């Protein structure tokens, strides 16, 4: 089998056993890999109604066929499980070098089952697989864990090639905002996948591999790689904006378009946006550009903060958390935002959800629903020191941080104002206000893992005009646009590519097809890929249905539907888009019809 290794490692943490299994080629072809294949495995193997933190849940790490092959931006591995934060299907996606190294070791992925009694970590050196004790690692930050595991390896050159994915204290405490960190600062971030790892007492996975990945057609693949790189290099975003400033390049434009969440989404533009912009970041704290494995974009920014209050270094912040921790908390101090991001990486938490939760807490505090006595500190908007202090408390599960570590929805509920939680399906919303970009509202509402931007980034056309310029303020035609992006994203994710390739004009199915066919030899047609994307989206939906979700869960926070804001002083007119969306999807009552399911070969 080419492109894939064809093998998956199954590890039972309850009895400490593991086995190597063959992947079914027919299944691979239907679901491509990564996100799609992982969802299929999870759907077949667990009851979607289970408690995500119970031993019955499974935790799947899975690569795509392009991961580690040298396809540009082909660095991604995906973590598929039932999500503790949302109770939906979870697929969190991460770059760096961990996925490629796992594949070099001979595995497309790993399925973790059961639960260990004592903390353990998994060691993989090609065929040599060991479940090792991790009592000494428990309680350590992600950076300390990385250092300690590497220090144990005798040959320092083997240590250098070893790639580690791990959780921090937040994952150990089963915070529903916990993520999985690899390469110290790259995160499989959203929906609390780190808590599942923590519930299984699995601290880390360390992998080193030297086996090689087979490519089906060397010449065709090379041609596709060059073609993809030429395209990325001709794209102004992928060749200039992202390499120069990283994702924070968006801060100013989103603010000028008046869709920048501010003061927990009470306003949609921020007077001090320039202080937290990509330009300011590049001029003040960025020290270096960094790329994930085989990436020709290199959007990551290494940063260093010298100010005594917030001293630190690491990667980021990224656009999303600059906004959620910045303007949404009324904070214009980039150093504090960077410090809070570093803490999230070290303690193992999703920066978007942490920012969103603190912003909710700040509004509760400002309105007098949450007191200083309860919170243990003054949580007023604009309080940069409180942002950093609370992030640390959440990561370590200390004091009121323990309450906040389960996310904004339970917090707002606890203090009697669920309407102040800004998210969907308990997932804190990312940093685009749908009152000025209607398609994103539909995307947040319908995304299978809750309010999420990387499941169907219609922003790319609505604001950025990447493939086609469309009006962000109207609702007409948005259902079709959102569906197109959702299905395409499912394929990009499943292939193991980074979603940012789709920020390049014309980087659509044809490019992905060229790369996939060169690597796998499958001869996918475009229609087949479009249908596979549709199939993956529908299967995720079916998982949620069995997990107990209904049509009513496709709902935005009241504020976005009732309080006008944005350039047109409008609300998000979700009701004008949702029925059309269901119709175009071939769904009845929010879920696939029998007819739709048999069309896609789903049961």
């Amino acid at each position: 089998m080419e492109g894939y290794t064809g093998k998956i490692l199954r590890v039972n943490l309850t009895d400490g056993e593991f086995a190597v299994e063959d992947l079914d080629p027919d299944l691979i072809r239907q679901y491509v890999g990564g996100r799609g294949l992982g969802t299929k495995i999870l759907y077949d193997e667990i009851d979607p109604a289970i408690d995500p933190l119970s031993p019955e849940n499974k935790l799947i790490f899975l690569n795509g066929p392009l991961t580690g092959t040298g396809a540009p931006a082909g660095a991604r591995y995906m973590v598929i499980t039932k999500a503790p934060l949302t109770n939906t299907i979870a697929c969190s996606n991460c770059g760096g070098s961990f996925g490629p190294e796992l594949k070099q070791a001979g595995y497309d992925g790993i399925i973790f089952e059961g639960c260990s009694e004592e903390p353990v970590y998994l060691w993989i050196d090609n065929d040599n697989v060991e479940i090792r004790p991790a009592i000494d690692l428990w309680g350590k930050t992600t950076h300390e864990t990385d250092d300690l595991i590497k220090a144990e390896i005798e040959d320092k050159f083997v240590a250098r090639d070893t790639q580690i994915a791990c959780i921090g204290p937040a994952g150990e405490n089963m915070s529903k905002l916990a993520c999985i960190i690899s390469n110290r600062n790259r995160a499989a971030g959203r929906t609390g996948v780190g808590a599942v790892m923590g519930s299984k007492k699995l601290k880390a996975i360390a992998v080193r591999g030297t086996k090689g990945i087979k490519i089906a057609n060397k010449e065709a693949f090379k041609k596709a790689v060059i073609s993809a790189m030429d395209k990325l290099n001709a794209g102004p975003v992928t060749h200039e904006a992202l390499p120069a400033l990283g994702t924070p390049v968006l801060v100013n434009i989103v603010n000028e378009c008046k869709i920048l969440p501010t003061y927990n989404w009470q306003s949609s533009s921020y007077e001090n946006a320039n202080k937290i912009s990509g330009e300011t970041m590049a001029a003040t704290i960025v020290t270096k550009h960094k790329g994930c494995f085989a990436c020709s974009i290199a959007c990551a920014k290494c940063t260093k903060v010298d100010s005594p209050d917030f001293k630190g270094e690491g990667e980021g912040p990224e656009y999303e958390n600059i906004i959620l921790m910045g303007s949404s908390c009324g904070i214009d101090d980039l150093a504090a935002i960077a410090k809070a991001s570093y803490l999230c990486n070290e303690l193992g938490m999703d920066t978007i959800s942490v920012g969103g939760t603190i912003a909710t807490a700040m509004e509760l505090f400002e309105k007098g629903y949450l007191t200083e006595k309860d919170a243990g500190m003054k949580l007023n908007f604009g309080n940069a020191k409180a942002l950093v202090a609370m992030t640390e408390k959440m990561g370590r599960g200390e004091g009121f941080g323990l309450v906040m570590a389960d996310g904004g929805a339970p917090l707002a509920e606890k203090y009697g104002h669920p309407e102040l939680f800004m998210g969907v399906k308990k997932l804190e919303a990312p940093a685009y206000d749908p009152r000025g970009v209607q398609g994103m509202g539909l995307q947040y509402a319908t995304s299978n893992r809750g309010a999420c931007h990387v499941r169907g980034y219609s922003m790319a056309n609505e604001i950025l005009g990447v493939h086609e310029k469309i009006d962000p303020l109207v609702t007409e035609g948005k259902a079709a646009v959102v569906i197109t992006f959702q299905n395409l994203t499912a394929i990009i994710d499943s292939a193991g590519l980074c979603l940012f390739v789709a920020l390049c004009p014309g980087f659509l199915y044809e490019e992905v097809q060229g790369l996939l066919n060169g690597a796998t030899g499958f001869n996918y047609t475009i229609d087949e890929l479009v249908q596979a994307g549709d199939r993956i989206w529908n299967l995720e939906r079916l998982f949620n249905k069995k997990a107990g979700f209904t049509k009513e869960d496709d709902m935005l926070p009241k504020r976005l539907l009732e309080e006008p804001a944005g350039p047109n002083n409008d609300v998000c007119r979700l009701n004008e888009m949702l029925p059309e969306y269901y119709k175009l999807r071939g769904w009845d009552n929010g879920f696939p019809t029998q007819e739709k399911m048999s069309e896609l070969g789903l049961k």
Partner: protein
Amino acid sequence: MEKINIELRMFMTFKQYLPEGSLEGKAKMSLDDGATFGDILKILSIPVELPKIVIINGIIQGISDEINARILKEGDIVSIFPPVGGG
């Protein structure tokens, strides 16, 4: 001839075209009544063919031919970006 006043906000690579002495990428401009967006490009010597994203009063503008002919009015805020993206 009557004049209108607008605010210009330039970002990233477009900052270099701002009138001298502009601070933080912003400038006030006084234009003849009836002036178009295309006139701003001419006055500041911004090449028409440069790809750009134009936002007027928070509303993102459509294709470039239409933007260039767009007539400006008193108090307009005009923001110009190179193509950007992220997320």
